[in-house]
């Protein structure tokens, strides 16, 4: 079944804020997400980049392919650099702006987590986006704590595949009681667009976790990157949902509303998703079973939370 993509025309920013000419690999998913994100956010957006593939391929002095202000910063600092920029824009009286961090999984799950946790706890008015390609790609495919169990990377080579499950960054962010937390994938561009639109209108800390195929690191054909990201959602390895804070009438009565925003057009077993990529080639059956179980558990959990939210709404 073909899924219909519906983005209301009038919501699209006509101007392209991301121009061609980048040096990313073919089939890299990150630029697709950026292009859609900027259409939703508009030109009063500041982007903060820590070290990552994107910070390198979006420009290289004296060029930039982004038609919005860009601040580059040290690897581990992006969240708080954004907090500082947001504070300065506020004190300058600039209204209707978005300060967005665009960081890799390394800059989010690992080295960047301290600054991110600080900014989230303070509820600073920033949008933190993690494009998760599940390893340190810029430095040559080393494992991160976002690398899934069973994946090959240059630091989890044959004989020492990653044995730990992926860190649950979504729960970590939710534990900070933030205003908005969502997952999204450029394989579902209408959903991705709508989430950036929504995030733009929320004051406080917003976090969007993007799945981001990396043909070089995932060992896939560049032409397959969108198809494989769609399989990630169809297999429920990467469910697409959002959690929105509903401010209570009385203090202490805030609630968090879960919504599964993409119900995939079909279901595929986790093993199909894993088999589609060279990085999982050496995985044992044992690990496949484990990942299937984790995916099932996460899905059940999401359904439960969504239904509980719906009940509460009634």
């Amino acid at each position, binding site marked *: 079944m073909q899924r219909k993509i519906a983005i209301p025309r009038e919501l699209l920013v006509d101007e392209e804020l991301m121009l061609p000419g980048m040096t990313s690999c073919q089939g890299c998913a990150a630029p697709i997400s950026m292009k859609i994100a900027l259409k939703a956010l508009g*030109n*009063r957006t*500041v982007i*903060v980049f820590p070290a990552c593939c994107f*910070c*390198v391929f*979006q*420009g*290289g*002095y*004296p060029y*930039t392919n*982004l*038609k*919005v*202000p*860009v*601040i*580059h*910063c*040290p690897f*581990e*600092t992006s969240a*708080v*650099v*954004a*907090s*500082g*920029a*947001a*504070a*300065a*824009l*506020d*004190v*300058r009286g600039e209204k209707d*702006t978005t*300060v967005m961090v665009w960081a890799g999984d390394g800059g989010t799950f690992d080295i960047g987590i*301290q*600054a991110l*946790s*600080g900014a989230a*706890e*303070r509820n*600073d008015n920033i949008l933190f986006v993690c494009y998760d390609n599940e390893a340190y790609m810029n430095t040559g495919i080393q494992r991160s704590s976002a690398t899934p169990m069973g994946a090959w990377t240059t630091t989890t080579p044959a004989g020492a595949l990653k044995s730990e499950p992926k860190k649950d960054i979504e729960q970590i962010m939710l534990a900070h009681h933030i205003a908005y937390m969502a997952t999204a994938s450029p394989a579902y561009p209408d959903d991705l667009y709508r989430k950036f639109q929504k995030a733009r209108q929320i004051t406080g800390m917003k976090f969007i976790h993007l799945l981001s195929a990396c043909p070089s690191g995932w060992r896939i054909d560049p032409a397959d990157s969108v198809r494989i990201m769609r399989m990630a959602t169809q297999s429920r390895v990467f469910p697409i949902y959002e959690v929105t804070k509903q401010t209570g009438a009385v203090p202490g009565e805030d609630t968090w509303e879960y919504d599964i925003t993409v119900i995939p057009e079909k279901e595929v077993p986790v093993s199909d998703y894993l088999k589609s990529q060279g990085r999982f080639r050496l995985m044992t059956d044992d690990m496949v079973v484990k990942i299937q179980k984790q995916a099932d558990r996460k899905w059940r959990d999401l359904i439960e939370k969504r239904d509980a939210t719906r009940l509460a709404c009634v």
Partner: protein
Amino acid sequence: MKKAIKGNHAVSHGVRLSRVGVISAYPITPQTTIVEELSEMCARREIDARFIKVESEHSAMASLIGAATAGARTFTASSGNGLLLMHEVLHWTAGARLPIVMADVNRAVSGVWNIWAEQTDSLAQRDTGWIQIYCESSQELLDGVLMAYRLAEKVMLPVMIAYDAFFLSHTTEIVDIPDADVVDRFLPPYEPPVQLNFDDPRMFGGFFSTDYFYEHRYTVQQASQEALNVYPEVCREFNAHFGRSYDLVETWLTDDADTILVTAGAITSVSRIVIERLRSQGEKVGLMKLRMFRPIPVECWRKVLGNASRVVVIDRNLSVGVGGVFAAEIRSALYASDRHPPVYSAIAGLGGRDVTPEDVEGILHSMKVDDPSPDIPLYWGLKR
């Protein structure tokens, strides 16, 4: 208005009067009272600033990358371990040409804890590109903050004001707190030469290939050298508004001195007593107080020290494997000069150990003309 306040509070008043837009800091003894006072000032609306209560010093400095790029005047303060934690970001902020001002309360660092005075923390940051100014009194601290913003925003480099833990940070002195309107005339609002502007979007930082990086670094070096030309102008302006001023170095009785003692920070005050006493006994001694240490005012040092027959440097710091940092740098600054007296080095007061007038006199008298060898530092007061 004259008021008896502590050194740290003098800094806070300097920050208040500078009308900063964004403050970000993390507490560490003995810096804490600066940020406590600033928090109070923000809460009382005496400062219209956003105060980001970060989770570490690393984030304190990093937040100012965003804030200064987005056009705010910015301030932070730290000390010892906190300053060391910022190290990567110090290189970044200077290289990004952000005119941040920071107070560093000099505190000892090592593999054991010590919270007292020592300058090794800020001296370990000397290659970062930050302008460094060492202060001796609370008045100098308050005035130093105001002058630092003028200088920083002119040359577009960050400035660090460094001063001794407790001896200065927690000592009460009478300070003349200037009126806000006079300060406003001296220090206009911050207008960055390149603005973060949504209608004219720019990229700040980014990847510099080998084709550009070297030239980029050279511009940072040039900006630092330019500070030596700009600083005297800042002094003249400051003097015109407030009737006092502070040079690149401060000298006292050096013109006809055979021996010139060199100090930085609070040891200077103690040394003044000694110089006075020895002068009255007919000894031709003088004093040079180091103020600006990055960039090094080489010509200035050469002019002051060149006529002496020997120079004695007291270092409250230790570069392990070398000895005293100031002594080593003064030696190399004098080397290419036609007049270069021997530079004797004494290490004293590490980890906040008191340096009394008797210590300073002892150091001066232990260093007779060729004894000990100037190459070997004298570890004064070491318990054996």
